[in-house]
């Protein structure tokens, strides 16, 4: 990189906010996957204006800018694959306002999602989206990937809570979209336009989020299923009877084994699947009635046992276990590739069956877990990347898993995004017309292709 770029960045935002030593560049070269690429420089802006100044310098030198929060993404989205400037938003982590009457929070993009949740909960408010990375991801990253999580079954995903955004555009202009007005049809829906855009259309620096009242009561059940098939069927048996649990999470036998190895919490090792089902609400009795009704349905549809957490501690432990699945896979193999396909809900058993047969065909373990209630599965392939033969198989397996999703009417990603990992499959998933108009949108906003280039959309 031209040393003039670094000098200009230092002048614009202060030398202590610009990192370029080899050690710093390595620290900012990866995300939650095994891929890595060094940036040329890292910037740590603290204001919208500083972000804009960085983008203007990038534009002047035609250099990529890769925005990131805590870089826990699972699709390579925040890796600077073409070098350039990594723009870390972690120093923009303030809560600007919690508006209790309108039940909205305005925050800077770099706030850790769990920290925001803790602050609003002190006021009896609630921000529901709960990606597994809730403690190590930021609101900005969550919006840019439209993060989901277990609770999204009942409460919706990140995008459903975005009321307004402040976005720095590729030319350095700062634009505000939406606002606190609940109904807002003035012009195109610009909020949703940036939701899930993975930093390729603009850099999200502030977010206005809708909040709800915190449901004071929750009951969580751990349901044992001798067959994975029955677990799949149970999901829509519950939902089609008009019950809307807060979450219905599926863990297959390998996932159970991994958690057990990591946490020794006494999970059953003789079942094919577990469902973690949570019911919550404002009224204790109706929450209890709902979890009882769900338990009855489970037992009718093939569950061998239902254990309802007896207290908050047991409940927290169940969720800690669920959140640990993905990283705990390291107990089985040094590398994992976690996919994020979604299928129509009634296709879950079929999807799982096909994935298991792919696993058998290639002889590599594939762990399946995920948000069964909304058809979002996380098949994780376990392997050792140092073995070229295994790596080759992994690439084939990934392709076949996507084929399963598409054939069943589903798609590539439910909540992780496309990043670089799923890029080769985009044309098939979306078709030429959709790719074309999306690319034209990208060009209109970022004609130099400097914002997170090489991500989300295949270049023409």
């Amino acid at each position, binding site marked *: 990189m031209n040393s003039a770029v670094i000098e200009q960045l230092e002048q614009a935002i202060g030398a202590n906010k610009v*990192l370029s*030593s*080899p*050690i*710093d560049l*390595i*620290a*900012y*070269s*990866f*995300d*939650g*996957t*095994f891929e*890595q690429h*060094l940036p040329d420089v890292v910037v*740590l802006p603290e204001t919208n204006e500083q972000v804009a100044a960085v983008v203007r310098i990038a534009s002047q030198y035609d250099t990529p800018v890769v925005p990131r929060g*805590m*870089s*826990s993404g699972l699709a390579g989205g925040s890796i600077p694959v073409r070098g350039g400037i990594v723009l*870390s938003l*972690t*120093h923009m*982590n303030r809560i600007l306002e919690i508006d209790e009457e309108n039940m909205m929070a305005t925050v800077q993009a*770099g706030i*850790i999602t*769990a920290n925001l949740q803790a602050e609003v909960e002190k006021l009896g408010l609630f921000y529901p989206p709960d990606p597994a*990375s809730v*403690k*190590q*991801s930021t609101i900005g990253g969550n919006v840019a990937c439209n993060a989901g999580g277990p609770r999204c079954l009942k409460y919706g995903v990140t995008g459903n809570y975005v009321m307004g955004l402040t976005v720095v555009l590729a030319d350095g202009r700062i634009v505000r979209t939406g606002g606190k007005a609940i109904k807002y049809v003035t012009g195109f829906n610009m909020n949703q336009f940036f939701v899930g855009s993975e930093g390729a259309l603009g850099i999200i620096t502030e977010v206005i989020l809708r909040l709800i009242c915190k449901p004071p009561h929750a009951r969580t059940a751990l349901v044992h299923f001798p067959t994975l098939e029955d677990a799949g069927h149970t999901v829509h048996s519950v939902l089609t009877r008009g019950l809307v649990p807060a979450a219905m999470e599926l863990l297959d036998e390998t996932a159970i084994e991994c958690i057990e*190895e*990591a946490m020794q919490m006494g999970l059953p090792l003789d079942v094919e699947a577990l469902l973690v089902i949570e019911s919550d609400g404002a009224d204790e009795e109706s929450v209890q009635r709902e979890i009882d009704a769900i338990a009855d349905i489970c037992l009718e549809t093939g569950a061998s046992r239902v254990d309802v957490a007896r207290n908050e501690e047991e409940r927290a432990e169940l969720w800690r276990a669920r959140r*640990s699945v*993905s*990283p*705990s*896979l*390291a*107990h089985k193999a*040094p*590398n*994992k590739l976690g996919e994020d396909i979604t299928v129509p809900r009634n296709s879950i058993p079929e999807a799982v069956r096909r994935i298991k047969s792919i696993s058998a065909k290639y002889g590599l373990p594939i762990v399946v877990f995920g948000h069964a209630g909304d058809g979002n599965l996380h098949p994780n392939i376990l392997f050792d990347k140092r073995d070229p033969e295994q790596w080759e198989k992994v690439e084939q397996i990934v392709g076949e898993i996507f084929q399963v999703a598409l054939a069943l009417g589903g798609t590539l990603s439910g909540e992780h995004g496309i990043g670089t990992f799923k890029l080769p499959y985009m044309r098939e998933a979306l078709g030429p017309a959709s790719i074309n108009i999306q690319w034209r949108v990208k060009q209109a906003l970022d004609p130099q292709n400097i914002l997170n280039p090489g991500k989300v959309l295949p270049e023409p």
Partner: protein
Amino acid sequence: MNESIIAPQRSAEEEARYCVRCGLCLSVCPTYRESLTETDSPRARVALVRALKEGLLETPTDEYSSAFFRCLLCGACTFICPSGVAVDRILEMTRGELAGQGLLPQALSDLDDRITEYRNISAEKNEGRLIWADNLPTPPTGLGKKRAEVAYFVGCVSSFFPRSYKVPQALVQILDRAGVDYTLLGGAEWCCGYPMFINGEIERARELIRHNVETVRAMGVKKVVTTCPSCFHFWKHSYPVALGIDDLGVEVQHATEFLADLLEAGDLELHEIRENVTYHDPCDLGRKGGVIEAPRRVLAQIPGLRLVEMDENRDSSHCCGGGGNLESFAPEVSKAVSRNRIRQAAEVGAGTLVSACQQCERTLANAARAERLRIRVKDITEVVLEAMEE
């Protein structure tokens, strides 16, 4: 809690390979939480070890080294890691390799030289270890005793730094009132070796370890009691490994364990202390040393005392800022970490923060003063003594 680098199971590079880079460790790392810069995170430190192995970095530099010494070795990352990566072991082993390559930061290599020369961390004559006993109302009965059931291993900080004298002063008064048969080692006590170990110079520590063990054995000691959590952790978990034996031949207890048994036996009368007290788990005692309930059992014996826990307690405790020799290397980071912890105590409305470590007591008391918070900071031995007095 894991075995030390003295007998590593996997090399640092091998261990690092199991990091999936999920980033969960960032959420508990005191240095990351303070700087919000990835370079100060456990995940980045692990990535650096890998980068060197995989050729992304050619040779370790001072800057590389500083990434590993800008760390408190508090072990929060290792405890939370869902992939089971022993991050603390990676850090300890890497510090060892760096020390071997002459990349130990100057302040830390000076510290190790000082210990070798003076047998303590303070550069004062080692015979002066018992100065704190001079101005007690009556001389401690353990003074100069040649043989005893219990040896109280005071530790360098409480022996040489006047502001920590109150810790051994309180403990010996309690022991005397309880009629415990104990001895103080005086000049025969050498630095436990832990500072050298965490500076990566385990070989230099071995001489100290051998001396200390031989000393207490020769006195017929059955039990070594420490007030310093680092001395405790090192004696209990690393001494046997360093000497290549299964059993030291003496039991090692932290003072909180000893006091919990003593107080629960009911022979000592304790008076009421009506106060909201929070307990700060020292990293080397709790998460790393495995002593979590004993101090709480001690506090539970004091009538009227109400224990209010901070959100981050027990295994999930947040470092006081005094760990890992960081104070000698990056005092400003250390201070910021202390500040963050004392604020947690303020949030739960504690009137007093009690710890069981002379280091935590000092760093957190300083932080309370700097933050102008009305929280008293005390060592648990002081609180017990206070409850014993009219």
